[in-house]
């Protein structure tokens, strides 16, 4: 249970990170919080020749409210995100999900960007990012690009990040316009703090007449990547989010998911839980929207 030997480099700037990655290629791995990487290395499932430590880079930390949304720098600790009033007020869906991310002892070290980069199909932060159409900035030597979260995940723990790219920030766009907003987040896991067997997230906006104007519904743990259920969103829009609408949503979820069995849960259990959780997060979001003033955040 000891990691294989590796070289260790403390980067002081994003430039040093991208130079290190460019020089070392796939031999190098970035270490941020290390809460997944270090166990993988202990079990020798990962054997990087070089670790580039980004924990000391000030430019990779911080949470800012911009015109277009909330920007979270990649090396921001999950515990700092949980304490952030900007996230509490502007990204309530993320604020609801963060307490489910590991335990206090791992959130004190684990980072938002690290969770995004890893792409565990049952992880909460990638799920919320998927529900909120997050945008990811990747930087490599002499170049940078911004990717949508949709398409970023290509399979379990597989992303379209190139080996020489460093994730520097994640932008969570804010929903514009009037309307009452509400969010819901629920998951089922063996114990609190474990990875979810199934997790569901929803954010909705309803008009003064109570009609759903916009909906985002996403699931984690039932596929190789977190994903939006567009048929469920279509089934909600234009309705009063009443029982018939929720029955249509359940049908849409049933059609959309293709879960696998593993030692934690069977495929049929996951399918059943997915339908129940989606209904719960939508009801939670609708209740919240009914109590919100129009135009309130998110």
């Amino acid at each position, binding site marked *: 249970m000891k990691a294989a030997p590796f070289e*260790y480099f403390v980067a002081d700037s994003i430039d040093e990170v991208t130079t290190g990655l460019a020089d070392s290629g796939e031999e190098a791995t970035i270490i941020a919080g290390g809460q997944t990487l270090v166990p993988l290395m202990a079990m020798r499932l990962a054997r990087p020749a070089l670790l580039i430590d980004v924990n000391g880079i000030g430019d990779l930390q911080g949470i800012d409210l911009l015109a277009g949304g909330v920007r979270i720098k990649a090396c921001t600790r999950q515990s700092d995100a949980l304490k952030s009033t900007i996230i509490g007020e502007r990204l309530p869906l993320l604020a609801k999900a963060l307490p489910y991310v590991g335990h*206090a002892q791992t959130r004190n070290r684990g980072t938002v960007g690290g969770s995004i980069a890893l792409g565990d199909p049952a992880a909460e932060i990638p799920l919320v990012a998927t529900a909120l159409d997050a945008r990811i900035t990747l930087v490599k030597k002499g170049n940078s690009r911004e990717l949508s979260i949709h398409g970023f995940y290509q399979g379990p723990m597989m992303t379209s990040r190139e080996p020489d790219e460093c994730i520097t920030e994640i932008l969570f766009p804010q929903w514009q316009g009037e309307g009452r907003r509400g969010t819901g987040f629920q998951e089922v896991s063996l114990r609190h703090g474990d990875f979810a067997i199934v997790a569901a997230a929803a954010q909705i906006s309803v008009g003064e007449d109570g009609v759903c104007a916009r909906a985002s519904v996403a699931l984690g743990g039932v596929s190789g990547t977190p994903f939006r259920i567009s048929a469920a969103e279509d089934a909600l829009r234009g309705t009063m989010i009443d029982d018939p609408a929720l029955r249509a949503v359940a049908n849409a979820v049933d059609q959309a998911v293709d879960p696998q069995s593993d030692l934690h849960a069977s495929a049929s259990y996951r399918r059943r839980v997915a339908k129940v959780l989606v209904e719960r997060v939508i009801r939670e979001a609708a209740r919240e929207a009914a109590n919100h003033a129009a135009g309130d955040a998110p």
Partner: protein
Amino acid sequence: MKPRKITLEVNGRVRSATAEPRLTLLDFLRYALNLTGTHMGCEHGVCGACTVMFDGLAVRSCLIYAVQADGHDVTTVEGLCNGDGTPGPIQEAFQDAHGLQCGYCTPGMLISAQALLQSTPDPSDDEIREALGGNLCRCTGYAQIIDAVRLAAVSFQGAGG
């Protein structure tokens, strides 16, 4: 891969030693500094026995490499004692409430409890359970550990924090 010299503050004392990059902070504390109060359980971040405070926050010392602790501040269970080496208030509370049986998880429990009481001096039972959720205990069933933290909170407040 070459060992490098690191300097950090442990329990209020500045300590220097060499560490190969792959050495965890846990092994560094136990073998380089002989602070064997911090226990190794699972060694991959599941059990919480190795919990220490890193810059004042509870973390798992098996998930940080010693070289990453260079220039940082670490508190281990030894740092919870009084100056004369007798058990500190939180350790007294675990003794009084019988918050341990075999004692293997106890150093991690004590550190997690200390970190909780520093940020939340008067925690609810839910907050105590949440703070200790990352520490596994196979003996007690947790009830007396929660009693112990509640008792420690009272004695902390009695002592003016």
